[in-house]
């Protein structure tokens, strides 16, 4: 809730670029709540609407466990590393994997 507006400002321009792939490095993410998770779905939806994609990388284990147990990894593209995310451009990841 506290930092979400900053992220929204940062992504606002990039997300509107046609066919842009945005890789969001989450290594410093210590916590995410429902507002942040809803925001990631919104950014992902907006990106997809422009023919692009939003990919999350380096999600800390504590946060990853939470978003997995809530089911958000079924609808968000989460990769361990930036290389893995970029490699997926050639072979898109199925979110249900």
């Amino acid at each position: 809730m506290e930092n979400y507006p900053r992220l929204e400002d940062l992504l606002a321009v990039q997300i509107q670029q046609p066919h842009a792939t945005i890789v969001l490095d989450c290594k410093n993410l210590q916590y995410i709540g429902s507002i942040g998770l809803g925001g990631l779905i919104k950014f992902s939806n907006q990106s997809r609407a422009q023919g692009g994609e939003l990919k999350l990388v380096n999600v800390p284990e504590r946060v990853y466990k939470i978003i997995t147990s809530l089911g958000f990894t079924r609808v968000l593209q989460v990769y361990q590393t930036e290389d893995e995310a970029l490699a997926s451009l050639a072979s898109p990841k199925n979110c249900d994997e």
Partner: protein
Amino acid sequence: MNESDKIVLQQSADGLSVFTPGHSCYLEQIRALVCAHTRKIGFPEDEVAKIEIAVDEVCSNIIQHAYATGAKWCWPDRPPEIRLNLCMEQDQLIIAITHHGASFDYAADCPDRMDVRLQRLHTDGYGIFIIRKFMDEVGYTSSDATGNTIRLIKYLPTSPSPSP
């Protein structure tokens, strides 16, 4: 900064009380206090993370909705405040979160299922699901005299039995 802008803590053998202004800038501090206390009690880190997010969702909802401008507060003459009481009763952690903003019954609210909202890529409405999913019990009481209290209960996991 005056007295009403500070977090006030009371720690005792029975538990922890936190009295905080109802503003989002205090959420990070609230989370840190809840995490430290639940770790000290002996909850494993995965459960600490679940309690952290449940408490944060309740407090965020209070700040965003119960204390929204135009909402019908219980005690409109007081500044927005949140009180948290954490205590153990046998093997249960009981977290009571009290505020005097607008009433909202978390326990009775029945939004769509979370998996359906996710499937439809909804961008909001996940808070109450998270609270219910990660806590073992969720209760709610409200009165003009005492304000509104959300009561969260989490059972302390039992220790694994020693190997024979």
